[in-house]
């Protein structure tokens, strides 16, 4: 995936055919992070925040459901992906770039959880097996795509793409 151009209202990426396939298959995984992955509070009185915790989880579930629908639309509406000679051009508004960052963030964290929450800085390395290797690859891909999307939002910086 490569940044083609950007303006205040639109960012355009080019994806080769295989990149497009991989991009779509990666997004198929969304959502991966369970809505209760993080408590509303670690120290507040549980009685004080219990109901709020439930509401928060419901709201997050609903929000991800809407995102999933929007993702399906993005991949199929013919407005975002334009087929070109050697692949596809992806047209996004800056708001959609931010939203995709959230989506890839969910998949990245979800893959990390599937790998047993490794922490390489603390010496807790991922225990890779033939079964979970796909999560490691997907996590890495999400990180790379996130960096690309972040660069596209910073017109003053050299994106190095």
């Amino acid at each position, binding site marked *: 995936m490569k940044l083609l151009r950007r303006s205040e209202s639109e960012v355009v990426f080019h994806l080769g055919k295989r990149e497009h396939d991989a991009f779509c298959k990666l997004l198929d995984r969304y959502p991966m992070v369970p809505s209760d992955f993080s408590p509303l*509070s670690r120290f507040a009185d549980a009685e004080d925040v219990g109901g*709020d915790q439930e509401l928060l989880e419901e709201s997050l579930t609903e929000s991800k459901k809407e995102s999933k629908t929007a993702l399906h639309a993005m991949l199929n509406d013919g407005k975002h992906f334009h087929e070109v000679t050697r692949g596809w051009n992806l047209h996004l508004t800056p708001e959609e770039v931010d939203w995709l960052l959230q989506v890839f963030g969910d998949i990245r964290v979800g893959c990390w959880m599937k790998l047993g929450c490794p922490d390489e800085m603390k010496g807790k390395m991922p225990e890779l097996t033939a079964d979970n290797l796909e999560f490691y690859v997907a996590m890495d891909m999400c990180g790379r795509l996130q*960096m690309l999307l972040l660069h596209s939002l910073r017109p003053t910086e050299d994106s190095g793409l």
Partner: protein
Amino acid sequence: MAVIEAPVKQPDVKKTPEEKSKKQLDQGFLVICWDDPVNLMDYVTHVFQAVFGWDRQKAEHHMLQVHKEGKSVLVRETFEKAEHYVHQLHKYSLQATLEPAS
């Protein structure tokens, strides 16, 4: 053989935000972001900018605090606003909580 009685189901009695202790409400709530080994530093900076409208320098300062100290207090707010911010941060899959300011 021990007999385990079925638990008696109590009606759900949850405190509304208005019923939270006066002390907590007076002192407000801190929105805290906790370190995790998975989210990228640039991504966390972006999220702080997007959620709080901060400039890059301030967002980066808090991101580095999370990275180096394990957590950063992002804002002090009323319960409702703090809850809103935590919800936004959770949408980006960051580990964020609200804690009583006392």
